[in-house]
């Protein structure tokens, strides 16, 4: 059993949750799927005194489209993103990434908002958020604000979220028809976190290119490669992408899955693979 005494709240409305998080700012943790937080509590690594469960707030669980964007509620489960027809059609990168997270049981319960709030440096979503140019909606009892993905990830498991605030929505642009996308991850065992992952989003005619890497630093990072691909794919362009990825991965950590040099070498490989995949997925004409 978890040793820390917990005061538990299960609000049914977002407004109630935000009021609770404000009242208990500092001692409260919002609980979404709990796939990381609950084991951390069991192990005594996290010891929140107040839990505000978001699992009973239907208004945070949705996938909807507007003419330009897809809006994803923070409590949308990974399994929903993996199987949702709108996501699969308009943002297949995200469906693909979601399908690699943990296992079926974890994907049934874990949420995109929980994952992005936890912000593991090798998680599947962050490079995709960066490459796609996503925006995060952050709410508190005082109001709402929007943060671009590139401003959101701050450090090792650190985000722009402040005490009393909640990530409530992820907004991603519709990419189908105008962009080619690719996502690649290096892992040894089904369901494990990637050791290195890479996401690429290329606009038709190589008008814009965004490449992001995960697992090679304290947060996922964007790698500047657009200038190398002005004239499309070539051996020389891919070599430049590889060199840029290697340079950007200079702070890659060492652990039992691989040392820093290995991760930097894999950053080269996975950056090129993601770019090649995205280029191959570019819509014709």
């Amino acid at each position, binding site marked *: *059993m978890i040793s820390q005494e917990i005061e538990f709240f299960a609000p049914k409305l977002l407004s109630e949750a935000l009021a609770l998080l404000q009242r208990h700012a500092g001692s409260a943790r919002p609980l979404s799927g709990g796939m990381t937080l609950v084991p951390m509590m069991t192990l005594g690594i996290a010891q929140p005194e107040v839990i505000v469960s978001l699992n009973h707030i239907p208004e945070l669980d949705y996938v909807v489209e507007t003419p330009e964007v897809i809006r994803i509620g923070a409590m949308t489960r990974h399994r929903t993103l993996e199987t949702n027809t709108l996501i699969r059609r308009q943002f297949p990168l995200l469906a693909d990434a979601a399908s690699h997270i943990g296992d079926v049981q974890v994907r049934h319960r874990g949420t995109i908002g929980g994952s992005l709030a936890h912000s593991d440096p090798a998680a599947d979503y962050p490079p995709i958020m960066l490459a796609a140019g996503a925006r995060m909606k952050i709410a508190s009892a005082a109001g709402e604000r929007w943060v671009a993905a590139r401003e959101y990830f701050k450090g090792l498991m650190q985000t722009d979220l402040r005490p009393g605030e909640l990530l409530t929505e992820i907004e991603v642009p519709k990419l189908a028809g105008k962009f080619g996308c690719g996502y690649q991850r290096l892992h040894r065992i089904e369901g494990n976190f990637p050791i290195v992952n890479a996401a690429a989003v290329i606009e038709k005619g190589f008008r814009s290119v965004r490449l992001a890497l995960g697992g090679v630093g304290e947060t996922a990072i964007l790698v500047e490669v657009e200038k190398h691909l002005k004239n499309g794919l070539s051996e020389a362009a891919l070599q430049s992408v590889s060199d840029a990825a290697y340079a950007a991965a200079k702070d890659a950590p060492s652990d039992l899955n691989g040392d820093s040099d290995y991760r930097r070498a894999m950053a080269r490989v996975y950056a090129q693979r993601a770019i090649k995949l995205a280029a191959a997925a570019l819509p014709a004409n």
Partner: protein
Amino acid sequence: MKVPIEVVVNRKPHHVEVDTRTVVADMLRDQLRLTGTHVGCGTGSCGACTVMLNGRTVKSCCILAPDVDGQEIMTIEGLADDPHHLHPLQEAFVVNHGFQCGYCTPGMVLSALQLLNENPHPEETEIRRGIAGNLCRCTGYQFIIKSIKAAAETMAPKK
């Protein structure tokens, strides 16, 4: 802190006083005495604690008991309608030697049920992905996969 919850387990409503620090797996085992749900790692890796929550498999060691207030759970004890007969999946595991020590079996069977509910004719790779969240340290998985294939044959509507 103790809170009262209402939870439907195996189609029966239960009123339970739970400590807010309790996870669902411990509530099922210690308070409802449904010991078919096993706890292996306690941290979401092994899948021995798999149950169905509102019809979808989850790891019950990673969900706080107060969070299932008003929800519906099915454990391995609720799989067969009649206590004197096995569900076709259980039958297939017995016939095909789909377990040795049996510790992972309740979770394996429920993961297999989830898979076959969504995909009545799975390929072997789909079976392997379907049980990726369940560790077995005895069988090497071959007989488990054989059991699930056999269950698919008997359970699925004929093609």
